[in-house]
């Protein structure tokens, strides 16, 4: 099976879908001539031409809106944000147009489109360029939110996102574009709302997604050395969320730790805990813990940033706490 980087899997997904469906096009800053700020659209301008791979000026509000308008009229746009931090500029379009047009027009208009780009902290990018946006977007009815951590998942989920009839926020990671993995040559799709067990285990359920996945896997490895067996569940899609997979695992392990990028207040982590206590209250042997950012804007300084980010060591400490092995 071919080994690809995540950026290549993303490119292949876009290329295949653009070949399959002429309504699909890509738009964003530096997606064409520069092949994408992180080279996710390498070769697409040459292959499809400037009509379908569109370099935009610095106009996030505008091109998010143009994408939505094109989607309403039957096209299937992929809008790339150079980072999801820049989606803040386009938030009104996403919140009030993309998410609501189907509802407001009694289904006369749909918004079949994808907003994609890197999300969350990378390395020394400071407080305004290090934010995790799934917590904002997963809050909004009318949107779907996906976060990927492997080339296989990236390709299968992006193809599903492009074919979806509703707006999908597709979250990638600047630090993980070079992560390699097997990707089948034959076509495949991964449905939304289906978690993937990245590592089976019996003692603690570790729930994670996106950039949290490598942290959780490393923590599970450290825990294994202490004879604690962790089941690492990669949610992959946050809205819809695979509640059944979470609950099945928690009923087995009776303990859960959630590892993710983002702040503790509000957000997806707290939402998962709410679902666990609602659906598996009697199965819990310990409080469910979160390992995420400290409740602070991200500092630029490397040593301070490292204190705020979720790390395998911090995740291991939480695993020890829920197993009462402090």
């Amino acid at each position, binding site marked *: 099976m071919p080994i690809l980087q995540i950026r290549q899997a993303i490119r292949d997904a876009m290329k295949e879908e653009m070949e399959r469906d002429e309504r699909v096009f890509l738009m964003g800053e*530096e997606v064409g001539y520069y092949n994408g700020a992180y080279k996710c659209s390498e070769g697409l301008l040459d292959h499809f031409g400037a009509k379908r791979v569109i370099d*935009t*000026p*610095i106009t996030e509000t505008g091109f998010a809106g143009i994408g939505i308008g094109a989607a309403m009229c039957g096209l299937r746009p992929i809008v790339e944000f150079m980072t999801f931090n820049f989606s803040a*500029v386009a938030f009104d379009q996403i919140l009030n147009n993309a998410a609501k047009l189907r509802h407001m027009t009694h289904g006369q208009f749909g918004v079949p489109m994808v907003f994609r780009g890197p999300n969350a902290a990378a390395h020394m990018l400071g407080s305004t360029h290090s934010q995790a946006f799934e917590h904002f977007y997963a809050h909004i009815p009318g949107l779907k939110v996906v976060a990927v951590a492997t080339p296989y998942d990236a390709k299968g989920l992006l193809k599903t996102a492009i074919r979806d009839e509703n707006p999908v926020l597709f979250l990638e990671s600047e630090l993980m574009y070079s992560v390699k993995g097997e990707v089948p040559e034959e076509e495949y799709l991964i449905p939304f709302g289906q978690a993937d067990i990245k590592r089976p285990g019996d003692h603690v359920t570790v729930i994670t997604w996106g950039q949290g996945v490598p942290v959780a896997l490393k923590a599970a490895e450290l825990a294994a050395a202490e004879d604690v067996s962790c089941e690492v569940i990669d949610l992959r899609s946050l809205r819809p969320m695979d509640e059944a997979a979470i609950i099945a695992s928690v009923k087995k392990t009776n303990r859960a730790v959630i590892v993710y990028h983002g702040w503790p207040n509000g957000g997806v982590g707290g939402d998962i805990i709410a679902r666990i206590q609602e659906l598996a209250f009697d199965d819990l042997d310990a409080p469910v813990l979160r390992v995420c950012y400290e409740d602070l804007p991200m*500092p*630029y300084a490397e040593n*301070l940033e490292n204190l705020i980010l979720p790390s395998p060591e911090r995740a291991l400490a939480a695993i020890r706490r829920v197993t009462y092995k402090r």
Partner: protein
Amino acid sequence: MEDCPWDPEGVEVCLDPEGQLVDRRAAQGVDLRALYKRLVAARCLDLRVERLGLPMWVSCAGEEAVSVLTAMLAGQEDWIYPGVRDFALAPIRGLDLDDFARQILGTAADGERPYNGRPGALAAADLGIAYAPEPLGLHLPLAAGQAHAQKLAGNGRATIAIFGEGLTTTALFHETVALASACDLPLVLVCKSQLWPEGAPAEAGLLGDSVAERVKACGLWSRRVDGADVVAVHAALDQALRRARDARGPGLVEVVVTQLHAGSAESDIPAHRDPIERLRRHLDREGQWTPTFQDVIEAEVRGQLERAFTHAQAKEIGR
């Protein structure tokens, strides 16, 4: 002098590429030797910080006329809203070099909190320097708000905002221009534009004309000048600030700069695009420049910078 694709067309030339003062009147009362020292110091500052290799740091080599002249021309009570490449204005405005180095490095003075901003995004509230936000254009309406406050106070003070032409396609830029025009604010917008002889990318913000021309249509007073011609930049900024302080309305000065830092793709940029070199040629013609003069300025600035960065790096907290 041959036509050069890096030189802006249709701008008034005060100091020509050979360093000849075409418009002596424009330089009247300007101490060009003192200005030269400031420009050299700004370049030394840039090179010193670049050596640190900090993520998100962007060099401003070639753009010094804007930061240096803004700092020199802004009144004590005027406010400046800089971009992240305009850090050189802070020491001229009085920011202590130790503090400058701590802000760049994100370290803390004894008993104080460390700085968390991106390197280059300096702030000094006591010196009238607002924070340079990283998201593009976020500082423009803030500057308009400050200008509005100045206007309400009726104190005859101006507010200056500095930015690059890439953000002139954003809604925030257009909204700020609309507000400044509608409310007749004492606001001076300083836009640094680049020329793109090899063709501009879409995100350069070029819309077929100059930014100065574009804002004229919105009722703003504007001038377009060459950033390599410090005398012309001085004249335009001075006029814009006087107008704002005299309640004659907002203005925009578009300064065409050529980026000279090592990372810039072009290597065939002629020396006269460097504002420092052009002014040096002038001083040389006038018998006011010698290699020793140059060495003394550089040695002095480098010494001060070394001391400041050594102090700042000795702290435990920081990058």
